[in-house]
């Protein structure tokens, strides 16, 4: 099968999850209760909302990830032809990794990889 398999699989996933949820809706008789809808916090009444400022550490890692992920995408076409191109491919990738590694060391020196 060709590209159509992606459509088939997506529809299958949606049908499966929608079917499962609908079937369970048929069996379940829910009851209303004001305490039932509260967010779970080990039994204590919830204080404040989680939708506010969050630890910046995750953001820094996401930024570094972005650089390396783009690098990974560049590597895919290189990897396919590396064996055919031969020594030139190795030299190129050493230069590429050298520049990348300098950036990585810079981020490391700046403390971006330290958990805060």
């Amino acid at each position, binding site marked *: *099968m*060709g*590209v*159509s*398999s992606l459509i*088939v*699989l997506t*529809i*299958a*996933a*949606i*049908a*499966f*999850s*929608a079917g*499962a*949820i609908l*079937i*369970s*809706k048929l*069996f*379940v008789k*829910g009851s209303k209760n004001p305490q*039932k*809808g*509260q*967010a*779970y*916090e*080990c039994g204590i009444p919830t204080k404040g*909302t*989680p*939708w506010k400022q*969050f*630890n910046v550490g*995750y953001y820094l*890692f*996401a930024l*570094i*990830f972005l650089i*390396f*992920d783009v690098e*990974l995408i560049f*590597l*895919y076409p290189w*990897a*396919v*032809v*590396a*064996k*055919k191109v031969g020594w030139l*491919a*190795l030299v190129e*990738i*050493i230069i590429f*990794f050298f520049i*990348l*590694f300098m950036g990585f060391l810079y981020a490391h020196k700046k403390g971006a*990889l330290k*958990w805060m």
Partner: protein
Amino acid sequence: MWSLSDITNSIQNALNRAFNPTFATLTEMVIVGICVIGLFAVLGLILVIMERKVSAYMQVRLGPNRVGPKGMLQSLADTLKLLLKEGLTPDGADKFLFNLAPVIAMIAAMLLLAPIAFAKNFQIWDINIGVLFISAVSSISVISILMAGWASNNKYSLLGAMRSGAQIVSYELSAGLSVLSVVILVGSLKLSDIVQSQENGWWIFKGHIPMIISFVIFLVAVTAETNRAPFDLAEAESELTAGFHTEYSGMKFALFFLAEYVNVFIVCGVGATLFLGGWMPLHIGNWHGFNHVMDFIPSSIWFFGKTFFLIFVIMWFRWTFPRLRIDQLLNLEWKYLLPISMFNILLVTLMAIMGWHF
């Protein structure tokens, strides 16, 4: 000889003879859809019972042993119970995203089944950029996790989702780099080419030490990517109750659970395809008798055997290593695995150019 591809071919021929082409294609699509859904459900049930049994035997206890023979139907009973539970949506939640998240997790898991070679000539879609497709689609699952955590309006969920997001995106890099080392040696992203290249030996044997290093890195990285112990910070029970799916109940929770287990199956299947030869039987040099006996085992059994072996190894990890802290987890990736796998890529390239591999 009897094989899965014969069955699919005969079904295809029968359909083409009986109906006109358009209708035959449509029927084929419906059959594929039903088969995939069936595979999903069966995999979920098998993996849950396997996880519980393996955990039980590792801790010298019996595990579930009441429902069915030796407790084998326990996960079926659990599914039935989950089916009868009410699917709650908390009052403060973002209702649309909250309900969308499990569906996206399912779609991501289901799409990943497309390029996997289950047996000889038995693939839903032999896409020519298979490896890239897998690494691209597998990162959709992080969106569903972040969505679920954020939409729940619960502090535990948000923390779990953030941790899981940081962890998945970090470990994706070293998983991608270790996958690339196979691509360099094969020179193709197509999964069927990769399997074919291992006809005379699996890459883990043919590729000397660099391939063993990338196999180990791959195994560690996918353990982290699927949020399994020792990297299960996202749902560390003792700190975050259940992480990103704290607020989920009933069938929506079951969908997350199912998607998680199917993801484990898929990453192990990819690992088996790349490093352990997929459906290729074990061949040793010129032991012709031995090779001939191995050829008699159907290719699907080879694939599923290798995959379940890797799943067993990942379950073994869970009961061997203690859970890491978030800073240790990120240190492990950024300060050890990533530089090692970058250096390893250079080694593999050198090996491929010099032709040192067998």
